[in-house]
């Protein structure tokens, strides 16, 4: 797992999903982010850098 998502902290704002260049992330029906296409992740760190809730981290 390259991505670590702390679901308890996520408020579903969708910033990470929108900024992800590879469309790895999506906000699900309960307004929490999830990795829908994790193998595409290039570990650019955009999600981690822009998450206002410290809910997603890229493990390098």
């Amino acid at each position, binding site marked *: 797992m390259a991505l*670590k998502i702390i679901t*308890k*902290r996520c*408020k*579903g*704002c*969708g*910033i990470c999903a*929108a*900024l992800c260049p590879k469309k790895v992330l999506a906000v699900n029906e309960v*307004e929490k982010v999830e990795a829908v296409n994790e193998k595409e992740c290039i570990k650019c760190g955009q999600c*981690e*850098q*822009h*998450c*206002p*809730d*410290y*809910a997603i*981290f890229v*493990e*390098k």
Partner: protein
Amino acid sequence: MSTEALIDKYFRPGRLPHIWCPGCGNGIVTGCIVKAVEQTGLTRDEVAVVSGIGCSSRASGYLDFNTVHSAHGRALPVATGVKMGNPKLNVIVVTGDGDCTAIGGNHLIHAARRNLDLTVVLFNNSIYGMTGGQYSPLTPFGSKATTAPYATIEHDFDVVELAKAAGATFVARGTTFHAQLLTDLIVKGMQHKGFSLIEAVSACPTSFGRQNKMGGPVEMILWQRDHGVMKAAWDKMTDEQRQGKFPIGVLHEDNSKVEYTVAYDYLIKKAQEGKK
């Protein structure tokens, strides 16, 4: 150190998730502050965080430094006291646009004038978020707010120019979209010996975005990407191209002025020698 480890290190345990709304930029700016502290290599005991009142000022409650959550608009006077009491502390002032430029407006210009070694991180979300969306002195002209349902007819401050004119010796602006830049600017501000102000343009999707039909958190952060222009590019732009945009980066630096605590030490020495 990984970002996750940084959050665990500098945030008070058990305080997350924070109270800020979904998509609020305050979390990003607070994250940038802890990354900046880590980069400066200071320990938690060497840093003091002083905040006023407002959404942004809640940050001091989450951070595990020496912190004060002071009265509305009075973050700078309290920080001045902290710095004068112990000049070895690196004091970071966390304040919002209303807190810093309306209620604490005079404190801002006088702290800047004195050139006391404080690092002010001004979270500018263009609105009073916590109290329900009233317009602040940094709400852009023509924007809607709870107290301006037909749009505000008051012109907004350019806080960078204001601080510059008041005598601040380091003035910069970043946005939550340009988070890496913002971290670098806070590091520079902390390392600068003198009064530094870093304006962090942040989004308030709940109170500002909704009333002004700016879209949700995503549209608001992309707005920052499209309207923030790096200083080098800004300098080459014509007035027409600059319309509606704002410069980001280090916008003013002056190392010629003596810092307040240094001048104060000199004064004490002089008084002790009995000279006038």
